[in-house]
């Protein structure tokens, strides 16, 4: 099940852990990604906290925690090859994995249809 936030993050749930990345729309809007600053493993965040930063040549954007939880893994591959965010935003370009404080929180996020409508509204 993949869910989305208004801030253009995708969230995929597996057990009580989610994988988080940015959407195709977001990577296109940013342009060529040149650097990703990732959080430290085992750090805890509340929904809405700044967790990571993604930079293109001309823009820098914060990536927020979609829900409350603790970082359990980060995508080290982005350090060597940040272009993965452009080439595979929804797979190899993932940012971090987070163990949710409460997996039920997922219900509050947008599904694909709602997100697509959200994006359509921005154009």
């Amino acid at each position, binding site marked *: 099940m993949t869910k989305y936030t208004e*801030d*253009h993050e995708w969230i995929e749930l597996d057990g009580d852990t989610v994988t988080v990345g940015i959407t195709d729309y977001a990577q*296109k*809007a940013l342009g060529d990604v*040149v*650097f990703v600053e990732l959080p430290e493993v085992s750090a805890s965040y509340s929904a809405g906290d700044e967790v990571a930063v993604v930079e293109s*040549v*001309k*823009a820098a954007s914060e990536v*927020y925690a979609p829900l409350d939880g603790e970082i359990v893994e980060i995508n080290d591959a982005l350090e060597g090859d940040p272009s993965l965010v452009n080439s595979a935003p929804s797979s190899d370009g993932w940012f971090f994995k987070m163990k949710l404080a409460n997996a039920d929180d997922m219900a509050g996020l947008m599904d694909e249809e709602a997100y697509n409508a959200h994006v359509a509204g921005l154009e």
Partner: protein
Amino acid sequence: MSMNSQGRPTMPTPSNDTSEMEPVFQSFSGHRGLRLAEPLIFELGTCHTTGVDVEDAGDFELSIGDVERTAEIGCPGLSEPDAVRHFTRLSRRNYGIDMGVFPLGSCTMKHNPRLNEKMARLPGFGDIHPLQPVSSVQGALELMDELSHWITTLTGMPAVALSPKAGAHGELCGVMAIRAALEARGDAREVVLCPESAHGTNPATAAFCGYKVKSIPAQDNGRVDLQALKEALDDTVAAVMITNPNTCGLFESEIKEIADAIHQAGAFFYCDGANFNAIMGKARPGDLGVDAMHLNLHKTFSTPHGGGGPGSGPVVFSEALKDFAPMPYVVKEGDAFTLVEDGDTKSLGRLTAYHGQMGMYVRALSYMLSHGADGIKQAAEDAVLNANYVLASLSDVMSASFEGPCMHEALFDDRFLKDTGVTTLDFAKAMIDEGYHPMTMYFPLVVHGAMLVEPTETESKYNMDQFIRSMRGLAEEAREGKVARFEGAPYFAPWKRLDETQAARQPVLRHPVAEAAE
């Protein structure tokens, strides 16, 4: 994630087929006529070459302790002829105001008079030390006092702090003075309001001084929304930072109402004076309710940009703030001048070693004395006239962002390029092929694909007409779908578009000297 800027192409697309323009052979030398190839000094020089004749110190006993530098430093030397040639060749790859119209909005690229350079190099100014006895630098302090008099008179403000090293440093000085004044009255506040169109330095400065930054919206006419501002103002707001004329090139017509509202809330009005060149001699910030404002001497008073600096950012203060100005400052006692370098407990402190950018003070005063009060006013009028002439001459083929008259710069957006496939970036790069420096693009952020054109007062009507002809030609071609000259432009510059993405993904920030030596 949040998005605070537009993504735009930063990796070049392969250039068009320009084979018609290219010769059928390559030179043996790598040069192309007057386009002379030039390697780095690290590839040209050697560690055994020097272009200066320094006496031989001979043998003597060192007194530096046990820290003599024995390893190779890795800095090559060039003979004087080779050094002159190296930097002359490099210079020819640059575009400067001396070469042509430089309509870079918000940056004010006006003519740099050479008299200013000559004056700054008088030994009495250029060859004096900041810590000489004050008795031996009375003329320098007199110059600072005279410059202060011109600045306070032109701005209608009671005091000026000269020492900030550049505009952003001046902003820091101004906002620090505001915070110092608030703390002195025991009034802790936590928010600074900035319009979305603000220079990036404004929010950066406010954050630096420990404030939270909140943005205030603009109205459809490009000016601050007074009603929204009033609603945002409360006793948590320390200051409002507004550029006037603003970054859309418009004068804030409700400036006095804005100032009144700010003061009623007990906050201070910081004016970003980056665009003071449009109103110098025509209007005084002191009459408009401003509490603090920095001036960019390189923009308003013609000190050179120098490829990125040095700048100078004096700050004028209202009565409410002037006691908090930084040290050092000049005081006149009878016919003698002294420097207050310490001991002023109200002052916000010292922002730089020594006394600021003396070399820039001389140049700015040289410009002011040359123009006089009458010429300064004329310069502002001509700057506004040239910008409006551009606006009036291009409005039918490009999309002006706001209705009419502008101040010293004309703002267009990319609506006229809609569905042409040409972006603001392409359009700007095509201007390079026309022999012009591009206008400012993608700033301010409040319009889409912004193009900000600032001709300045030092362009003739002939230059303006030539420039307008090029701009019209480009706009018409883009709209007719003739996009060849835009895709991958520039074609006639010594370099094609550079790959900024590669530069940022794998940063190479220095020549690998050590490896080369091995």
